[in-house]
């Protein structure tokens, strides 16, 4: 499978990365180079093979459903580009 320039624009939009029009042809070439190389996997018959779901067989860890952390909003917003009174500030999203 390969991507065309429209697909490059579409996945850039999905990934929320602004891509300049001038970069699209180069990205198309690079992504197709990688995708073509990956096609090698089609040689392998994986029909009866289950996908790997965990690296080490172990039971999922569970804990009681209770609050175990928190209570420090100042720390949480400390690294934000913009915050006010313990809230993250973003551009207006509702008109």
């Amino acid at each position, binding site marked *: *499978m390969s*991507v065309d320039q429209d*697909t*490059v624009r579409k*996945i*850039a939009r*999905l*990934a*929320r*990365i*602004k*891509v300049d029009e001038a970069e699209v042809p180069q*990205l198309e070439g*690079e*992504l197709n*180079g*990688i*995708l073509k*190389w*990956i096609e*090698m*996997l089609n*040689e*392998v018959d*994986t029909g009866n*093979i*289950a*996908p*790997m*779901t*965990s*690296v*080490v067989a*172990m039971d*999922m*860890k569970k*804990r009681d459903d209770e609050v175990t952390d928190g209570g*420090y909003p100042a*720390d949480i*917003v*400390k*690294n*934000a*580009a*913009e915050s006010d009174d313990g809230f*993250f500030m*973003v*551009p207006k*999203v509702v008109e």
Partner: protein
Amino acid sequence: MSHLTELKISEIRDGLAGREFSAAELTDAYINAIEGSRVLNAYIAETPDLAREQAAQSDKRLADGEARPLEGVPLGIKDLFAVNGVHTQACSHILDGFKPTYNATVAANLFDDGAVMLGKLNMDEFAMGSSNETSYYGNVINPWRREGSNVALVPGGSSGGSASAVAAHICAGATGTDTGGSIRQPAALTGTVGIKPTYGRCSRWGIVAFASSLDQAGPIARDVRDAAILLKSMASHDPRDTTSVNAAVPDYEASLTGDIRGLKVGVPKEYRVDGMPEEIDRLWEQGAAWLKDRGAEVVDISLPHTKYALPAYYIVAPAEASSNLARYDGVRYGLRVPGDDLVSMYENTRAAGFGKEVQRRVLIGTYVLSAGYYDAYYVKAQRIRSLIKRDFEEAWNKVDVILTPATPSPAFAPGEITDPVQMYLNDVFTVTVNMAGLPGISVPAGLSGGGLPLGLQLIGKAFDEETLFRTAHVMEADAGFTARPDKWW
């Protein structure tokens, strides 16, 4: 007191205990060495004040007879590990100014054991790279050069700053992380020892996530014993990481017995790849001969799906990265580039904040996870992963440990490899280990024709790092690798 930087961690431990020097003197010697080595660009944030404060505490502990396992040992920490109040950016522009309010579990474990932090180490952006050329903070330079040449070489990656700093003796040891070879490949290219432990051995909590089913922390050190000492402190069970394994951490140093009689060592034929330099093939045979001479039995084995590991990795890792890196949106931390609305702010921020290789991988990951392609790519790759794991499980019926080359070539020059797929091939011998979650160690074993370090890799059974250390220790002794880079910097 520059000779202090010559001491290995095991020697530092003895020297401090015997009051031959103080932790403060040792730390000052390293701070001076770092100041004189900035041309290597190994550190992207130096923390001398913190280091001196920690060293003073270590001296007090030593005086009170309360020394901990790493008391006063000066280490470098890869920029991927969160350290409270200190630059933590995964060497990306998008995390501009980020200073966490907590320590990664691995960093906390090291501090709890008395380690001194000298600073944060350079790396490929978000650990995506094999040459340390994708860092927002510039290339790291390998202290090694080809014989008679003054051309700069890469230290490998992504833990390039860690490997360069350990090789240049501007830290006693360093932390690294390994998603496809990012500890073992730079260790091989700099003549240092690097171990990626079994997935789940070290907590991932507080380590900036790249590909969560593959990422694992481990040390880069000057020798096998130092690596064993460091891993003992780094590893732990951590309830905050659901994949961290609740198993006792052995005393790895105790496994360095020097006795490998009866050990079965597998040599997989699929690792003899096309175009591999003859000197690497020869070194591999030499490694097998050393182990045989010490009483091990060398067995030919087959790992038939080896060649599919790297392409499958380049589906799994970008897919997980595209998901993990979705959090960088200009809202909660790091860079924000304004836009006309919320979505354009996201798009502008991520375009300016991520470098080219990171963008490429996020795009590939987004594509392989997008509607209609998930089964053809991601699920297919996870099925291949099951086959790779099964290859190893079958091998463990015949052998205890597997010997391979660590890298397909010695260190190369910055800019020498520009094609992404060619760069990815640097991890051809290391990536299978991540795909199967196994431990692997790279040990310096000889020099190339051009006088550059070459490494051999040992692969072990899950949670059997002890056999890896024991075997690596024997191989290290026989290789007698004592070469050092000329100090040109």
